[in-house]
């Protein structure tokens, strides 16, 4: 046994766990609890709202709606026949398809359609939970600097990168848990609503795999939001300033870029969030160009696939985390 081992104190009885301490610390924070409770209330409110705003129509309501739709369709066909401007080459089938009216529009209360409503609300919830976790991340990072517990923790674990990355990992873990709980709760609510007040059939064959893919993308967004919020607050060392910067960026900078620097639009946060959450991504208009031989300008459309949007957001957050870590490692803490 070396002299250092002989001299070692008696109080340190086991391996310290910064990760465990940080999980306990985050769990103990009242503001985090409050935010998560608000999130839960929000999910329940969405579930209750969906349940009460839908109704499964009985046979009589279906018959009535179908009759109304048929009348509407016939009126459209009659009007089209007398229309002198209509396409002379249009076949009767094409005309019928053009005038077809969905009878579901005539229900007083529409049924909950699992195939449409479950993924639609899941996307919205993922965006909402991401915003919530951004707040959790920002306030956690800001609180560490406001209470100056970040430097104090270095008396216990002097490896700064380890401290920061552990805290980030805890926020990311919370984000995964929040995303999973949200999607599970919503899926259960949606199944119950569909069975009692809606339609469960008519789902495409890959419905469940698509839903799982959507939920994974949503979880990624929530994790990135939490980690990004924490990294931003660590860079700025102040919750209010970090939230202010985020607000100004989203409301002012992104709109300025959309207005004056359109080619940069595919790199904007809002576009990439939409590209990540929407099935098959989104198309982003980035300007116009002329091609030889065509006097009319052509729109330049960039497709933001799920993969591209996810990678753009991930790289952005990694850059923030690396910046925050590098700065924290170099900083004099006075």
């Amino acid at each position: 046994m070396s002299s250092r081992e002989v001299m070692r104190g008696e109080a340190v009885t086991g391996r310290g766990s910064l990760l465990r301490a940080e999980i306990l610390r985050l769990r103990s924070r009242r503001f985090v609890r409050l935010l998560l409770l608000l999130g839960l209330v929000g999910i329940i409110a969405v579930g209750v709202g969906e349940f009460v705003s839908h109704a499964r129509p009985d046979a009589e309501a279906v018959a009535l709606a179908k009759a109304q739709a048929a009348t509407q369709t016939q009126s459209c066909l009659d009007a089209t026949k007398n229309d002198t401007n209509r396409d002379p080459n249009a076949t009767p089938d094409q005309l019928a398809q053009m005038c077809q009216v969905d009878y579901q529009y005539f229900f007083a209360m529409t049924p909950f359609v699992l195939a449409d409503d479950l993924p639609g609300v899941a996307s919205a919830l993922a965006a909402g939970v991401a915003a919530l976790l951004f707040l959790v991340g920002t306030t956690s990072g800001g609180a560490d600097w406001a209470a100056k517990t970040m430097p104090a923790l270095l008396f216990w674990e002097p490896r700064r990168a380890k401290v920061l990355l552990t805290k980030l990992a805890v926020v990311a873990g919370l984000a995964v848990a929040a995303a999973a709980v949200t999607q599970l709760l919503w899926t259960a609510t949606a199944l119950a609503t569909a069975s009692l007040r809606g339609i469960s059939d008519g789902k495409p064959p890959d419905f469940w795999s698509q839903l799982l893919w959507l939920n994974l993308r949503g979880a990624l967004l929530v994790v990135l939001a939490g980690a990004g919020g924490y990294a931003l607050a660590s860079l700025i060392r102040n919750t209010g300033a970090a939230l202010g910067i985020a607000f100004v960026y989203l409301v002012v900078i992104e709109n300025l870029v959309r207005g004056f620097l359109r080619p940069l639009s595919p790199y904007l946060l809002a576009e990439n969030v939409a590209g990540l959450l929407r099935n098959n991504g989104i198309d982003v208009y980035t300007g116009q160009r002329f091609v030889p031989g065509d006097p009319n300008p052509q729109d330049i459309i960039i497709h933001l696939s799920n993969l591209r949007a996810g990678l753009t957001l991930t790289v952005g957050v990694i850059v923030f985390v690396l910046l925050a870590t590098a700065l924290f490692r170099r900083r004099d803490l006075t």
Partner: protein
Amino acid sequence: MPVIEVRGAAKTYRRWRKPAEKAIDGLDLVVEGGGVHGFLGPNGSGKTTTIRMLLGMVRAEAGELRIFDRPVPSALPDVIGDIGALVETPLFFPTFSGRRNLELLAVTAGVDGARVDEVLSTVGLLDRSSDNVKAYSLGMKQRLGIAAALLKRPQLLILDEPSNGLDPAGMVEMRELIRGLGADGRTTVFLSSHLLGEVEQVCDHVTILARGRCVVSGRVDEVLASRQTGDLRIRLPDPEAGRVVLEQAGFTVTSMGDAWRVHGADDPSALTRMLAERGHFLSELAPIAADLETVFLDLTKDAP
């Protein structure tokens, strides 16, 4: 083996749109193991910066710093388990209870949870441990900071102004605690303080800092002895007659109860001879050592 060793350390703070501020300028410091080592200096002399450099909070620009013979900050993770620290105001989550704050630190360091109660009891906070830290007075926060620093049962306890915010009774308790820790045979206390009386009462060794440099270091009694006042304490069988003789010889004499203080007596043998020639034989003669305040003010008088 020194517990703390600093050789030629330097640090200049450079802040945007502000002039550079040289905080540490070639500091040498050695703290041997055991006892209480005082670290004295006027405001801005670099005490807290030195402590922050030792704890890896501030990067030294030059020099070598070692704790337990390991270079810091690079080897700090290896030795941090044996170091307890309280630097300026203790920092805790205000909305957590004192106990909760300590429990979280205990988990971080792998300290047995029972130790939390022990240290809370040591600093007299057991009864208030369930209150949120934001409800604590400055003195209570200071106690909680000491409790946190003691949690690891450290071999090196670094305390930066631990008496800040404590009431007189609390300061006495704190000094007893520090003295006790320094005397336990395994703990070295490195005590930064501007309270000269505290250092004089509690410390075995002292280092005095001025403008980022060490101006004197050593055992407290040796430092004091090295700075004589030039005054003598004398006792005579006939005090009044002796006083008259001394004053006639040009000395300033003031009373010290049953003895006289002779000011500016640089040559005790000449004084003894002069008194003997006039028939006064000393029953006691002792040089009066400077107190720490005098030494401190003398050594740091040129500091800004």
